[in-house]
């Protein structure tokens, strides 16, 4: 009996002694924060966790495109009634039950928290002063700023933190003012920018956040901070100190131009073809583009030239968001950006180039047919086409804009910046008129030059889905929406009646197919338009009219601006009446309610710290 007791006691003691250690379970497959930010290579994998959140539907098919409709440039199709889908976002009718709101919000804060973890990890790292670590720190901070920028553009004042969330923290942050957030982010980036590397000195170049982009981002954030925004009482205001921020914007654009200047790619089309062809040139137009590997990314599927699935190996793609006919006709017809930005043809199931309707003018900058490896007959998403977040011409135009604002009119620097953008856009032969004379004509006053910037940014960035942000900060959103609807209505009426301001524009277009209108043939040339930008003075010989076989080589007639008119009402058709339905002020004086409500789940999870009061939501 005794020895048994002894064994029992001894056994228990041994077990107890080792028990605390026994209950510690560590796997060689998991790591803590210190470990990850102790080496450059692991730290970069840490930062890639922030980048990875670009490869989510929240970004690829939501934030990067559908969240930015509808403006005077980009407009997505809207149904007869609100349907709780993306179409409600287009028409300013989104409600707190729209799942896309949650998807994007959650993804944004997931990215911000991961960026916060990276910032903290790098700052605490023993090798924090290594140049590569400083670069990574800048990347994390810039990505954080970018997500906050989008959040504020869509939800106004939002909860703000620059430290990663921990278990014991107050999880119920209230909203912070946009001015506070923007100032903090701008200062944060100003501090980190000098330690960063230019795109030419980092692996994967402009597919990663680099010094040039951060300079541009400082300017972009500053212009937002210096611009107008919508307050919950439905008034657009800007802060008194706005000029300080225009100064920062000008300084950083100028710094970028002075330190990392580069010629704009002489071919506007090439800039985007490169993306579709998976080419990432250095020191070109694009300062930073979101990189998608083959099998990822929605560019060319939900935003790009329409391709219908058939037996061909390119799969299908279309666009959630199209371009407005008024925008299309606002272009100078010599502008090389027009055929690149706006496509009025698409590729049918046999890859035949085919004209589309006036209400379906597509973004032509990206095209899945150019992908080096076709993605298969029934493929859809996963094109691997990159998405540009900032181009050099944006920096030039921001420079021109801030300079004009600060100096009460454009200085030589501003004029030169605008000139560089327009020179690339027009063929050399028309430079005298379209560049020199044009700029001279708009440089007379601050207002004229500002208006020129407003227009130039539309023509330069159409389809790139940044117009909404510009219109908001300029306090032009309401005006432009009202204007667009008015213009489109007039175009429809005039096309129908044949008289009026727009009666010279084509009510119908005549086209025929080129001998070769296949994919191999240059885009936009497979369909030969008899008239494209003006009304045909005489009706060209029509195909098979009046009798079949009469004129096989004749033209085919297609409704153009007439397609905007609904003879049954009679009046402007549903495209015009529904696309901006939630905005009802035809004078354009009222602000557009571009601020979204928080998703109902976000409100309920906040336990009362967040609500949807204001902006007319409650």
């Amino acid at each position, binding site marked *: *009996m005794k020895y*048994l007791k002894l064994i029992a006691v001894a*056994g*228990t003691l041994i077990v107890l002694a080792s*028990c605390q250690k026994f*209950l*510690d*379970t560590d*796997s060689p*497959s*998991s790591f*803590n924060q210190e470990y990850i930010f102790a080496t450059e290579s692991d730290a970069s*994998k*840490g930062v*890639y*966790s922030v*980048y*990875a959140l*670009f*490869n989510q539907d929240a970004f690829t098919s939501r934030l990067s495109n559908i969240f930015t409709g509808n403006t005077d440039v980009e407009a997505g199709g809207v149904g*007869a*009634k609100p*349907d*709780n889908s993306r179409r409600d976002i287009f028409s300013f009718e989104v*409600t707190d*039950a729209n*799942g896309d709101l*949650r998807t994007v919000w*959650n993804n944004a*804060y*997931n990215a911000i*928290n*991961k960026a916060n973890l990276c910032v903290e990890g790098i700052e605490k790292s023993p090798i924090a002063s290594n140049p590569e670590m400083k670069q990574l720190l800048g990347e994390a901070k810039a990505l954080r700023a970018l997500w906050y920028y989008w959040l504020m553009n869509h939800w106004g004042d939002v*909860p703000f933190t620059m430290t990663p969330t921990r*278990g014991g923290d107050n*999880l119920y942050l209230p909203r912070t003012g946009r001015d506070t957030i923007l100032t903090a982010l701008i200062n944060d980036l100003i501090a980190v920018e000098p330690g960063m590397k230019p795109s030419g000195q980092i*692996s*994967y170049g402009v*597919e990663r956040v680099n010094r040039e982009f951060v300079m541009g981002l400082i300017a972009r954030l500053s212009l937002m901070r210096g611009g107008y925004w919508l307050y919950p009482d439905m008034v657009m205001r800007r802060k008194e100190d706005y000029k300080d921020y225009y100064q920062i914007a000008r300084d950083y654009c100028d710094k970028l131009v002075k330190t990392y200047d580069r010629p704009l790619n002489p071919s506007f089309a090439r800039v985007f073809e490169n993306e579709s062809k998976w080419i990432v040139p250095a020191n070109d137009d694009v300062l930073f583009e979101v*990189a998608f*590997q*083959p*099998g*990822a990314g929605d560019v060319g599927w939900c935003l790009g030239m329409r391709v219908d*699935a058939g037996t061909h190996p390119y*799969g299908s793609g279309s*666009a*959630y968001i199209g371009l407005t006919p008024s925008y299309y006709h606002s272009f100078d017809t010599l502008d090389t950006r027009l055929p690149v930005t706006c496509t009025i043809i698409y590729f049918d*199931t046999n890859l035949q180039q085919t004209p589309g309707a006036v209400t379906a003018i597509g973004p032509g900058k990206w095209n899945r047919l150019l992908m080096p490896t076709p*993605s*298969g007959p*029934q493929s*859809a998403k*996963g094109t*691997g086409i990159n998405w540009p977040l900032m181009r050099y011409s944006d920096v030039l135009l921001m420079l021109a804009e801030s300079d004009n604002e600060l100096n009460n009119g454009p200085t030589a620097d501003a004029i030169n910046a605008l000139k560089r953008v327009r020179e690339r856009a027009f063929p050399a032969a028309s430079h005298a008129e379209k560049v020199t004379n044009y700029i001279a004509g708009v440089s007379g006053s601050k207002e004229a030059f500002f208006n020129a910037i407003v227009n130039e940014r539309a023509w330069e960035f159409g389809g790139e889905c940044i117009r909404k942000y510009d219109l908001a900060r300029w306090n032009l959103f309401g005006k432009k929406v009202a204007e667009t609807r008015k213009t489109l209505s007039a175009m429809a009426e005039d096309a129908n009646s044949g008289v009026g301001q727009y009666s010279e524009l084509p009510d119908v277009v005549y086209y025929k197919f080129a001998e070769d209108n296949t994919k191999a043939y240059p885009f936009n040339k497979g369909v030969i338009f008899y008239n494209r930008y003006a009304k045909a003075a005489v009706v060209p010989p029509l195909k098979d009219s009046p009798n079949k076989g009469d004129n096989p080589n004749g033209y085919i007639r297609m409704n153009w601006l007439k397609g905007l008119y609904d003879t049954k009402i009679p009046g402007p058709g549903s495209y015009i009446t529904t696309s901006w339905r939630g905005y009802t002020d035809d004078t354009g004086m009222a602000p557009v309610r571009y601020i979204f409500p928080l998703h109902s*789940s*976000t409100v309920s*999870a*906040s*336990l009362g710290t967040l609500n949807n009061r204001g902006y007319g939501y409650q």
Partner: protein
Amino acid sequence: MLKKVLLLLILFNVSAVCLAQNRQISGKVIDEQSGETLIGVSVRLKGTAVATQTNVNGEFKLSVPGNAGTLVISYLGYHNKEVSLSSESALTIRLKPSVSALDEVVVIGYGTATRKDLAGSVGSIKGKEIEKTPVTNIAEALTGRIAGVQVTTLDGAPGADVVIRVRGGNSITQDNSPLYIVDGFIVDNINNIATTDIESIDILKDASSTAIYGARGANGVVIVTTRSPKAGKTSISYNGYGQGKNFPRKLDVMSPYEFALAQYEYAMIRGANSSEFTNFTKYFGVYDDLELYKYQEGTDWQDELFGRPVMSQQHNFSLTGGTEKTRLGFNGTYNKDEGLMTGSGSERLYFNFKLDHDISAKLKMNLAARYSNNIIDGAGTSGGSSVRVADGIQTRPINGLADQIVINPNDINVGDDDYEEFIKGIVNPIELTVQDYRKRINRDFSINGALGYTPIKALSLRSELAVTLRNAEGKRYYGPLTGTSRDQGNNLPLGEIETSDGNTYRWVNTLNYRLKGTKNSKTNFLLGQELNTTSGSRTFNRAKYFDANLGPEKLFANMALGTSDRLETTEIRGEDMLSFFGRVNYTYKDRYILYATLRADGSSKFSPGHRWGYFPAASVAWRASDEEFIKRINVFSDLKVRASYGQAGNNRIANDAWRFLFQPTANRPYGAGGLNQTYYTFVNGSLPNPNLKWETTISRNIGLDFGFFKNRLSGTLDLYKNTTKDLLVNNDIPPQTGFTSQLINIGQTSNKGAELSLTGVIFEKKAFRLSGSFNIGRNMPKIDKLDGNDIRAVNSSWAGTDLKTADDFRLIAGRTIGLMYGYVSDGFYTSNDFESYDPVTRVYKLKAGVPTSEGTVAGVIGIRPGTMKLKDLNGDGVITADMDRQILGSAIPKHSGGFGLNASYKAFDVSTFFNWVYGNKIYNTGRIQFNMYYRSTYGNMLNTVNYENRFKYIDANGALVTGLDELAALNQNATIWSPFSMGAASPVFTDDAVEDGSFFRMTFATLGYTLPKVITSKVGISSVRIYGTVYNAFLLTKYRGYDPEVTATRSGTYQALTPGVDFSAYPKSRTFTLGLNVNL
């Protein structure tokens, strides 16, 4: 009594003569009633260690010293019998079956007890019962059999998960599965145990019984004991069956003509100029042609997908035998189960080998090795599978003109986002099941060894070591038709192989000591220590861009043919747990029984400082029937009152939920350089909480065991209340933290309930015997406290985020869980609700005071006569999500239970079992989804909304009717709103989809026939039984979906919070079985 005295006297005389002489006694033990020989019966000379067991012929031989003595004959399921030895050396002993089962041995934690001596609440089912119902799955055998134990099969797919809930389950968001113990060893599930190998299943229901398992006992403990080897002549038996299955219930879908007519109407509403109408005409022809579809037989997709006749078979072979000192048993089972759905099925191989060896009288050894290999084919219809049961309903029965001519379906102009649905619309679901290939192989190998040492009679020591090695392999193939291939794989096949290994070690040491008490009191002590550790590894390999014609078999055999996409390896460190426990059992005069237990558990799932949990429990019982005054009443043959109180814990949360850990992954990575950039992500998706601690359940139970008429009728009544504190809740936290949830200890829930079970022999004559069992239980779960927020909205997510106002469940402090929350249907708008119709603007103007559901019910028809109408609960004239929804019903049944009858007459035996659930509501998603065009292009609907029933907008000539009066005239007999009321991607949840889920099911019926011994013994076979069984024989229910008992969900997290949602999962089959039992 007189007889005994006489016998004794005789014995005394005889023994005096033969004193001190060893002699051989032989005998035979038979069943008193049937006369069947009993095998493995223990025969012991009273007060000595001299013992043996009967052999396969029921015979024994025993060498006894001297002439006197008494033999004690004991056998599971029979009353013990004492036989005084006489001069007779060949005895025939007749044992009486123990009807009351009071002497039945019940397995409790780390030991056994007879039911008579229990103080806790334990429900049991014996292997013999299960044998009568040839099912492949233990859980199926348990359904409805034990009061307070609810068993639900997630869906009818082979290998589908089975949910077992003991007394409702306590946690609101954590796993409520009971703890499973097989032969003393904790396992994850009991799916891999062959039903033929079961000796008994005991379910510990109250904390006084479960507290000995401490940490993990809060949700009850299911103890499975497999058959133990018996000494004697080697006995071999074979059990086998073949099974046919069919699809018991089809939903009535629209005929080809009705289908085309509805599509025509839908297109007409869109307008004769709409692309919908143009396309309709293109694909289905003009109105006058539609008549032709009356003569076309459409494809019955329910038949195509689930209707094929399928076969299953099982073969079981068992062997047991050995010497008195060394006994061995073997059980081998092969089972092949074809699923109703094309391409689905499971195949299983099971071996269990046991060896018991008595090294000496004091030292005994048990060894067991179990191996199971389980192959599951098919992606099923839930989770990430491409095919849904809905495809059986929604797939169009005809292809219109395309059935006659070849058209290019790609011409259909669809909304881009609906592309997925559109593609599915042209893909044959059967082809898709082939391309959406999945195969899962699970191999479990466990070895258990135990050494028992009894140095002195009062003390026994036992040490057990168990090792389980688990190997799982999952193969997933995505053919070109699947969405994954289109979006991620260049429209070429993709392959994923996931393999994982797991090792679990468990070491238990126990000490049992029986205190030398007085004549009246007995005290037993149990002291123990237990250690568990788990580790494993996982490899995930994914490659894409395989040749289009490469099938799954070739692909997985040659992954190098593709382009590697992801390769991930992980070392898994599971939970480590260290435990100490003790139990005291005190009995006074066999009448007053006390159990007290204490367990301490340390778990690595919590941070240092929060790791240890202490779980005490106590129970008392009073066997009143042994009291003189009760005996004098002479009513009760058994009467026992029990009371218990105890605590048990729950720590079933992910490992490392308390700390930040990162792991590398390449899942949806960034694509810099066109490459998958591996990144570090959180090991756990929720925000770590360093303060996590054990969830504790306090349970209180009072019970009454009773028996009448010499225990011909016996029963148990239990009342309980369980309270769970510090619930481990995966709490929704503001997503702006970067996380959407965090595990916290919060709130309190409780379950109150009552359970009654009865068993009895209804009729007993020599050749005829009829017995029955009955159980009923009622459980009332309640949320006592929440996280300060007294109402929480929960989403069932059956329609993803499509559902209009997606929060369709409520958790309310003070109420039960499973509250469905939605709009109240008010039929449909009639012409009387409208003031006017303007044919130019096409606007229907509602009369003042008629509430509008605009914005909520947002279909193409807008608000017009025939649109679904909702009740304006707050009377403000507009239907809003905030003000016009209410609780529509509760998924919690009022009671549930079952009853069974067993009868035998001569060589025939009949047994049957019925179960029911009463008073619960089911959220029938099919009622919504299948009566609208939910995300379908040219899809079909249920016949509920055929032309006759629905509110329609086209007249007999196919013309669109818009005027108020004309609509009223056309729809005089309409009974249901227009299926176009709701937006194609915005279904609305109303009380119309909340249905009574009560049902009554004949779980099975079996008829068996045992061949006469005279015949079988001639060929050396001791018994042959042939039987036939119908499983799921019939179902009485008003429920309109497939099956009120099937519930599955695509979102595991919220499963517990949103019960009662019928996702139209893979339906249960009806099976017909023919089987054979042979004993050699």
